[in-house]
């Protein structure tokens, strides 16, 4: 038993260390892109149109002669921003609605659950497209759209967790001695669901980064010239045969980042969330 746990803890470290290191690097690059990026991210130069990777442009240039490496560094900033802030929004809405529906029995709770079901059933990409076409695409709107589409899984999970925690003896006891329900909420329920929420949030960030790229594919993503990985892949796709570097490198950036987030999410799940760890 002892030996096994040592072995698995070392593996656990690797499981966290590799993607974690990668994500930290991406985060560092995104934060300090102004200092490390070799070129200007949006300044175009058509004379350098689709230049293959070389000593000056390590990852080549895109159809506007802009340095791909620079745009990947800056693009990470926007992509991560979109991913994290939209999921933060989704998390806040989802947790609030989930807890409310668990604490308020009767029609309020029921209505919230129907709303949750509704949002789970919506075809996210289509709805995002329709909303973006209505209100016009912008960075803020993209964040809002993704955030408003992604809260439902949080609500459903939090509600289920909160309901089961409410049944626990000590929580019931707190109720019985007349504790303020909000005190119960903050002291007993929130701390118990936080792990689940963090795990779900991690996985949702991965999905949000992908949805951002899909919106760019459909022409309703973050407007140009702001670089995001999604736009770079979406705009580069027509050059895939002529300039493989325009679409390959930003695509790899998305893939490795999302993969790392997913791996980290899985590791976190095993680590934080006893319900899922299946030990």
């Amino acid at each position, binding site marked *: 038993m002892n030996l096994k746990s040592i072995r698995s803890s070392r593996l656990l470290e690797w499981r966290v260390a590799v993607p974690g290191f990668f994500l930290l690097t991406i985060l560092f690059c995104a934060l300090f892109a102004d200092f490390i990026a070799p070129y200007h991210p949006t300044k175009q130069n058509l004379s350098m149109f689709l230049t293959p990777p070389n000593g000056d442009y390590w990852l080549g240039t895109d159809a506007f002669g802009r340095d791909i490496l620079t745009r990947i560094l800056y693009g990470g900033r926007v992509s991560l921003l979109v991913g994290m802030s939209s999921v933060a929004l989704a998390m806040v809405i989802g947790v609030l609605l989930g807890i409310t529906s668990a604490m308020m029995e009767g029609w309020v709770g029921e209505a919230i659950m129907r709303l949750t079901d509704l949002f789970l059933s919506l075809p996210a*990409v289509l709805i995002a497209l329709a909303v973006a076409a209505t209100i016009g695409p912008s960075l803020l709107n993209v964040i809002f759209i993704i955030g408003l589409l992604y809260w439902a899984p949080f609500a459903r999970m939090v509600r289920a967790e909160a309901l089961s925690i409410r049944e626990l003896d000590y929580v019931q006891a707190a109720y019985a001695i007349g504790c303020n329900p909000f005190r119960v909420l903050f002291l007993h329920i929130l701390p118990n669901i936080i792990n689940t929420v963090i795990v779900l949030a991690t996985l949702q960030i991965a999905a949000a980064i992908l949805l951002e790229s899909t919106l760019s594919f459909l022409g309703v993503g973050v407007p140009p010239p702001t670089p995001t990985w999604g736009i770079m892949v979406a705009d580069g796709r027509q050059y895939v045969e002529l300039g493989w570097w325009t679409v390959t490198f930003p*695509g790899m950036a998305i893939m490795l980042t999302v993969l790392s987030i997913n791996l980290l999410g899985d590791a976190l799940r095993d680590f934080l969330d006893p319900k899922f760890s299946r030990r």
Partner: protein
Amino acid sequence: MSSRFFYQRLVQTVLTLVLLSMVVFGLARLSGDPVLIMAPPEATEAQLEEMRADYGLDRPLPVQYWRFISRVAQGDFGMSIKWNVPAVDIVIERFPATLLLATTSMIFGLLLALPVGIISAVKRDTWVDNFGKIVALTGQSMPTFWFGILLILVFAVYARMLPTSGYGTVYHLILPSITLGGFVAASIMRVTRSAMLDALESDYIRTARSKGVPEWRVIMVHAFKNGAIPILTITALQAATILRGAVVTETVFVWPGIGKIAVDAVYARDFPLVQASVLAMGGVFLVINLLVDFIYVYLDPRISYLKK
């Protein structure tokens, strides 16, 4: 299965569908005006009004909604503004193609997810486990249009092994199914792994092992059977997700499915078609969820759904 649970879930689903119809209706109206897209540039405001009246778009929204929902109840979603065909016909016509793609994608997904999930569980925390997980997660970590285009490039344009796109033979199915199957594999793999871990540690398996049942039989028959319910559930839910709109994959591979026509309808502000297709997708998703719940309770009556 208690009948109270049955009716409760049924009513819930119908309520959600009604909510869905409202959201879809409202969103379609807000998103623009099909008349502005179709009318010639020199059309006057009076002519535009006239065209709107032809499509019934000049009435107040609640009136339009009431007309819409009462016709929907009779199976009439109106004529598609862009294609001049009843919208419901278009959706029904597309449905087999989407269903077919969903099925083959699930087969691909399961072919990848089940072995990886089982091996990962058996060889837990070894490099096999980690490698398998990375492979399964990779499919879910790529933008689908990027993956799809790369597949076309490699297998159709360079290797010339498979057709680029379209609908017709088994070969046409392969690339879109890999794209979608790769995307759903990760979730199924996760559930398979944890279900197998659960099963492998149960007393039931210990008993089987102690009886001297061969290890492969323990894993493949006893444990897998025990873990089958959650695996089936996630498979059904993922299939519902594909049916709810494989918008991007269908567009890239010119697959004549429901997602592709729906995206086109949104761009064209073809309200009747947007409403019919989104309601169909959402409806299928809700119904599959409902069925999964029923089957779940039917197979495992210990689960008390009233607690939910």
